[in-house]
C-alpha cells in the first residue's frame, strides 16, 4: 500500500457514514430527491407556458420565479437539495462498491426493479444535462454567462430550433424518467411508508409521474420544432 493511504485511510473515510449512519444518509438523500420531484411539477407547469403564443406570460412567470423573495429562498433550498442529492448519491454508491470488493462470476439478473440498478448512471446523465441547462439559463440570470435574462421565452424558442439540442433534451428526459421510475416509490420506502394499502397506490402514482412529467417536458421542444 502506498504511503499516504497509510496515514489517511480513504476506505474508512468513505465508509464512515455521513449524518451519523447509513439510514440517516438515505433519509437525507430521499428528502432531497423528493423535494426535486415536487419542484419538477412547478417547473413543468411554467414550461408549458412556452407553448402559448404570448411571450409575456412565460417571461412574467420566469421573472416571478427569479424575483420574489420567497422564491429566492426556495431557490437556495433547491440548489442545496440538488447538490446534497448528487453528493450523497455518489458517496452512497462508492460505499456500496466498497462493500462488495469481489464480484460474482455469474450473476442471474434479479427480477426486481430494473432501473434501481442503474441509478448512479441515470443520475449522472441527468447531471450532465443539468449542467448544460444551467449554462443556458440559470447562469445567464446570475450574469455568469451572457444572454438576455428578460427574454427566456425567446431563448428557449431559439434553443428548441436546433434538432441537436432537442435530441439531447429528449434523451435526458427519457433517462430522467428511468431514474424517477425507481426513485419515486423508493423515497417512500426510505421514509418508512410501506403497507398493503398505500404501497400499490404509491407505485402506480410513481409510474404515472415518471412517464407523464418527462413526457410533458419533452413535448415542448417537440411542438416548437415541428409545429411552430
Amino acid at each position, binding site marked *: 500500500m502506498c504511503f499516504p493511504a497509510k496515514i489517511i485511510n480513504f476506505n474508512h473515510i468513505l*465508509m464512515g*457514514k455521513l449524518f*451519523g*449512519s*447509513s*439510514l*440517516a*444518509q*438515505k*433519509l437525507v438523500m430521499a428528502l432531497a430527491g423528493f423535494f426535486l420531484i415536487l419542484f419538477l411539477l412547478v417547473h413543468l407547469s411554467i414550461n408549458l407556458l412556452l407553448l402559448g403564443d404570448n411571450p409575456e406570460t412565460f417571461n412574467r412567470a420566469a421573472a416571478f420565479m427569479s424575483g420574489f423573495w420567497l422564491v429566492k429562498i426556495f431557490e437556495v433550498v433547491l440548489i442545496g437539495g440538488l447538490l446534497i442529492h448528487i453528493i450523497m448519491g455518489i458517496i*452512497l454508491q462508492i*460505499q*456500496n462498491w*466498497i*462493500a*462488495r*470488493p*469481489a*464480484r*460474482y*462470476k*455469474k*450473476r*442471474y439478473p*434479479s*427480477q*426486481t*426493479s430494473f432501473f*434501481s*440498478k442503474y*441509478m448512479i448512471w441515470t443520475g449522472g446523465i441527468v447531471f450532465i444535462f443539468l449542467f448544460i441547462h444551467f449554462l443556458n439559463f440559470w447562469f445567464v440570470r446570475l450574469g455568469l454567462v451572457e444572454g438576455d435574462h428578460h427574454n427566456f421565452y425567446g431563448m428557449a424558442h431559439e434553443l428548441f430550433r436546433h434538432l441537436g439540442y432537442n435530441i439531447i433534451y429528449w434523451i435526458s428526459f427519457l433517462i430522467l424518467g428511468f431514474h424517477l421510475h*425507481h426513485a419515486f*416509490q*423508493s423515497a417512500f*420506502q*426510505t*421514509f*418508512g*411508508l*410501506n*403497507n398493503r394499502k398505500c404501497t400499490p397506490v404509491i407505485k402506480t402514482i410513481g409510474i404515472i409521474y415518471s412517464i407523464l412529467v418527462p413526457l410533458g417536458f419533452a413535448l415542448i421542444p417537440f411542438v416548437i420544432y415541428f409545429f411552430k
Partner: protein
Amino acid sequence: MKITLDIWRQKSPNDKGKFVRYELEGVSREMTFLEMLDYLNDKLIKEGKDPVAFDSDCREGICGTCGLFINGRPNGPVKGITTCQLNMSVFKDGDTITVEPFRAKAFPVIKDLIIDRSSFDQLIQSGGFISVNTGAAPEANSIPIKKEIAERAFDAGICIGCGSCVAACKNASAMLFVSAKISQLALLPQGQVEAKERVRTMVREMDRLGFGNCTNTGACEAECPKEISLWNIAKMNREYYKATLG
C-alpha cells in the same frame, strides 16, 4: 446425469483463488445439491486431491449455515429454499453449474466456499436480544397480542441468518437481516422496552462492519429462503427515525 461444475477454489483467506472445472458423472436426480458436492469430494479424496470446502449443518433449512451462490443466485434457481434444500432434480443432464461463495466485504472467504459469517453474530450481539431472563415459557394468554402483530413478528423472526440477502444485494447490504430482528422485537411488548437503543446500536454496528446501503431494489426479499419482506426495512427506518429524531 453428467454435470459440469465450475467451483471457486481458494486455499486460504489471502489466496487469490480461481475457478476450477469438474466433470462429474453418475449424479443422481435423487441427490440433494450438497450430497452431490459430497459425492464430488469422495471422488476427489480417492484421487488424492483436496476436497472442496463447504459449510453445512442441519441440512433441513433451519440453521442457515449452507448458503452458496449457485448459477448466479443465492441457493440456486428455486425460490424460498436454502442451499441444503436444493435438489439435483432441477438440473438437467449436461448442465454446467457455477458455484461461488457469498461475496461481501463483511463475509470474507475462509476457504473455497466457506465464508466467515461472524459479522452476523456481531450484529445480533450488538442488540438483537432482550436483556431480561425470560425463564420458562410463559402462559400464552398472559400477554395478549393481536394475531396480525404476532404473525408479522413471526414472519420476521423466522430469519435463519444465512446471509442470502447480503449475497443477493448489489450493495452487499445487511438491511433485511438487521431489520427482521429489529421489527420482530419492536412488534412485541417484550422487545419494545429496548427498541430505541436496539435500533441505534444495531444500525451503528451494521455500518461499522462494512455492509452497504440499501437502495430499495428488493433483490434480498426475492432471494430470501424464508421470504422475509421488505416491509421490515421500512419498519426499521421508522424505528430509527423515532429513536433518533423523536
